[in-house]
């Protein structure tokens, strides 16, 4: 039954009842703009400390209202993923929808409760604003539409990477990670906002936004093509790279970074080796330049340079002292992190383009540098850091005190040695973890139990090894002790090594930042051991140059001096990789590219 029936005639006196309004208080509105609601979408404010200039707000703005402006004086750090750009907004186009706030990876931009702006027509420039923490008029209004946890449009969680359980993996060298399924890869790739911070922070400037996009589109071949633009060692880097890209990832500011390394691994595994070879060969010139180049060391630096140079038509020969290629990636990284067949696949791509590798050829012993200087147009030395440093503590000259790099090489080569029942590793870097976990596996295989201790100088807050390595090592039974400095290797009266004495660390660096560890003599522990492994750093064996060349070259505190192209003081000799920069795979790849570009320019000039 309706309140007012249709047939109602209405009342003529009804309106008179509104005369009662004379008795009511009038509504008064103040002149000043009243304060807006708590989540009002007013003018923008941008916290310049949090903002990293990733320009994701620009991409999501549906009215194309945001312009990126460079502001000199703001911090700019490609390694950490910070740009000195900030968004400027055209208020003639902005509709204050707040999508920029919801998608901002760092949560720096937000909308306040300010909503009044007045200007004359000749002051239209005031519509183009650069939001800073003070607001566009400098009056501090409350935050209105701010980022909240349930309204975040970026996905802060990484797809979990499946791993083999500790019980199944601690006695074999099978690869631990399963890799992404294609669905996981697409979901993970969709988290990327294409800001490009990873590209800038990668030492070899990989086109990560492009290959992530290709993976998201389901086009793994295009991803491989984008990967090969900058890194021919991607099966390797997809497993063991130090991931500066993920450190710089803008999503990683508040959440998990995009798993760029695992995505690279996924793309490389998704395409067949044969097809990868075809894709890598694209762009190879179809003529022979007639120039010959020798590369010493078939590691990432040397082979990357070889890849670049052979694609430009040069004749490249690589001399490798050991019997298999890869350098540290094979002989330093254990198989459970990087299976050898994947490394072989990467190397085969390079040899399939026409690079010759001569194995078991040690320069300096089998062939002299003078021969190379005479027979080749350019020579690259990329022999890496094959030797381990020694702590030189008392007892470290005992034959059961080994160097980690040598022992890792032996394990890779399959050469037999007596696996210690109990062992201690000195050192806390990734190499220490590698040797500890490899020996742990051998111990489990031979003796059925793991008795492995790692004694590192650093404390856990400043540990050098990757957190995942530490966690996985602990799961496999390795005991890790922090802040312990080596004092002495203990030898019993029969000359047998029985253990390592360590002291508590008080400090590692002095006030000037120099390495000068101080120990607490009252805090001494003895760790039983049949073998002590020193894993405190690497150095290179430069005896291959010979006395005469060594005299001619310029050195810089024991390391070869190179210019910005990687060329030494000799015009025909370049040097690249670990031996120049220190141990890092992707830096070696970048170095290989750099050296190849330098050689290419030099050969083009010298006719």
């Amino acid at each position, binding site marked *: 039954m*309706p*309140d*007012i029936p*249709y047939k*109602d*005639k*209405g*009342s*003529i006196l*009804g*309106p008179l*009842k*509104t005369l009662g309004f004379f008795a009511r208080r009038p*509504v008064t509105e103040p002149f000043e703009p009243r304060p*807006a*609601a*708590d*989540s*009002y*979408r007013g003018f923008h404010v941008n916290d310049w400390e949090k903002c990293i200039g990733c320009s*994701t707000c620009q*991409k*999501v*703005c*549906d*009215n194309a209202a945001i312009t990126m402006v460079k502001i000199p004086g703001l911090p700019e750090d490609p390694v950490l993923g910070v740009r000195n750009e900030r968004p400027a907004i055209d208020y003639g186009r902005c*509709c*204050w*929808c*707040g*999508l920029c706030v*919801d*998608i901002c990876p760092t949560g720096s931009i937000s*909308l306040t409760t300010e909503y009044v702006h007045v200007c004359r027509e000749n002051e239209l420039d005031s519509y183009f604003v650069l939001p800073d923490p003070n607001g566009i008029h400098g009056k501090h209004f409350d935050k*209105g*539409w701010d980022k*909240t946890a*349930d*309204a975040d*449009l*970026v*996905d802060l969680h990484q797809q979990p990477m499946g791993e083999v359980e500790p019980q199944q993996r601690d006695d074999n060298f099978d690869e631990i990670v399963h890799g992404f399924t294609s669905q996981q890869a697409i*979901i993970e*790739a*969709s*988290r*990327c*906002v*294409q800001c490009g911070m990873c590209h800038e922070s990668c030492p070899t400037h990989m086109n990560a936004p492009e290959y992530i*996009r290709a993976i*998201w589109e389901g086009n793994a071949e295009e991803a491989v093509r984008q990967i090969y633009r900058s890194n021919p060692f991607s099966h390797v880097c997809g497993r063991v790279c130090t991931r500066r890209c993920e450190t710089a990832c803008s999503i990683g500011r508040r959440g998990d970074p995009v798993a760029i390394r695992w995505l690279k691994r996924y793309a490389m595994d998704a395409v067949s080796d044969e097809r990868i070879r075809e894709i890598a060969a694209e762009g190879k010139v179809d003529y022979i330049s007639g120039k010959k180049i020798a590369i010493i060391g078939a590691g990432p630096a040397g082979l990357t340079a070889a890849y670049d140079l052979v694609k430009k038509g040069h004749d490249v020969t690589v001399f490798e002292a050991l019997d298999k290629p890869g350098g540290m990636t094979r002989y330093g990284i254990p198989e459970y992190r990087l299976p050898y067949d994947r490394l072989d696949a990467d190397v085969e791509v390079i040899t399939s383009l026409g690079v010759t590798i001569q194995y078991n050829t040690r320069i300096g012993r089998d062939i002299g540098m003078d021969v190379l200087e005479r027979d080749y147009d350019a020579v690259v030395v990329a022999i890496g850091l094959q030797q381990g440093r020694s702590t030189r503590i008392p007892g470290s000259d005992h034959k059961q005190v080994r160097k980690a790099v040598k022992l890792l090489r032996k394990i890779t080569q399959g050469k037999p040695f007596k696996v210690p029942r109990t062992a201690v590793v000195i050192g806390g870097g990734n190499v220490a973890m590698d040797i500890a976990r490899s020996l742990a596996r051998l111990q489990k295989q031979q003796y059925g139990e793991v008795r492995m201790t790692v004694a590192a100088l650093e404390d856990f807050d400043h540990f050098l090894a990757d957190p995942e390595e530490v966690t996985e090592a602990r799961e496999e039974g390795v005991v890790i002790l922090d802040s312990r400095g080596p004092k002495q290797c203990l030898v019993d009266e029969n000359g047998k090594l029985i253990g390592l004495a360590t002291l508590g660390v008080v400090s590692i660096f002095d006030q000037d930042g120099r390495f000068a560890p101080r120990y607490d003599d009252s805090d001494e522990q003895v760790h039983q051991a049949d073998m002590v492994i020193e894993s405190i750093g690497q150095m290179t064996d430069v005896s291959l140059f010979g006395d005469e060349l060594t005299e001619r070259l310029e050195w810089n505190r024991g390391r070869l001096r190179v210019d910005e192209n990687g060329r030494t003081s000799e015009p025909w000799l370049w040097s690249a990789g670990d031996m120049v920069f220190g141990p890092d795979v992707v830096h070696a790849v970048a170095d290989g590219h750099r050296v190849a570009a330098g050689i290419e320019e030099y050969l083009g000039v010298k006719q």
Partner: protein
Amino acid sequence: MRPENYQAKNHPPSHEFELNFGPNHPGIEGNYAFKVKLNGDTVLSARADGGYLHRGFEKLMEGRLWIQNIALVPRICVPDPVPMEVCYSLAIEELGGLEVPERAQWIRVMQLEMSRLAAHLFAFGGHAATTGMYTTMFWGVADRDLILDRFEELTGGRVYSIYNIPGGVRREVPDGFLERMSSLLDYLESRLPDYDNLFFRNQVFIKRARDVGAMTQEQALKWGVTGPNLRATGLAFDVRRDDPYLVYDQLDFEIPTEPGGDALSRNLVRRSELKQSIRILRQVIERLPSIRGPIRCPIPNPLAWNVPAGESYTRVESSKGELAYYVVSTGGDKPYRVHVRGPSSMHAVQVLENLAVGSRLEDVAQIMFSLDACPPEVDR
């Protein structure tokens, strides 16, 4: 029409007189031109001419990502923007297989009913203005302003709330909002007797509006009339009950109808709907605190979100009638086609032309407002 495109025509002398009603006219809801041919005060024929509010939304939406369109969509219907947002979100949820959490569905119902209240206050306020009763218009707009205050508190925007997103809503209900909403509903209910005295039971208005713009049920069905206009001819059809969406099937409300089919009936239907909306809102306010959960379901990164291919036709009852969205996706990150079927597409063009014929000039504006014909919806 631009002045340079105007061509004067020479008509033979007759008793007919062509008057251009609009596009800038207080008797037109929005910007819309209506050319009437008059003989004295009687309308002989009428021709609608829209396009003054054409912003090209359907083409614009094809060039923007799925999420960017939520800022465009409320602008299609200015007085009643929420059903547009909800309909677009429903269409994408159907295409993408997204499950909207229950709390978000209840919040959406609350918004929709708030928007319906605001739109009806606007509509009969406008109708009153066309009959010269400006006090009711001011009351209507002022009371609508209080509802817009609630929108501002809930969504961050007064008119264009841009609050619904495919998957749910964007922000949680603020603390104390439900109490303030409840007191607002009490206030609006207390105002209804005032409105009745001044407007709905006003003899002047009833005399003005009765038998103006009358249509029978057959005519209404033939012309494709929907919404309160159809219910004013006696047919109880409401998308909320017959094609239910969100949680309307759990709510208790009536579908008011009136038998007359003229401007007076349409107003009375809107007035009855006000009461029904208040009733629904009270039920929602009561149920909402006990429904916990997330306010939206997770969606992928909007810059890299491919909605599966397919098409979907979703319908929603806006305050003006049946609103429908037809969205076609080809599996990309942008829509392939979005077609907006506004209820005023029928009301503002054919129905208005047909009803205006034979009426008096002073009633033309009244007919348009009583039909609640909204030009932004026609022009998109």
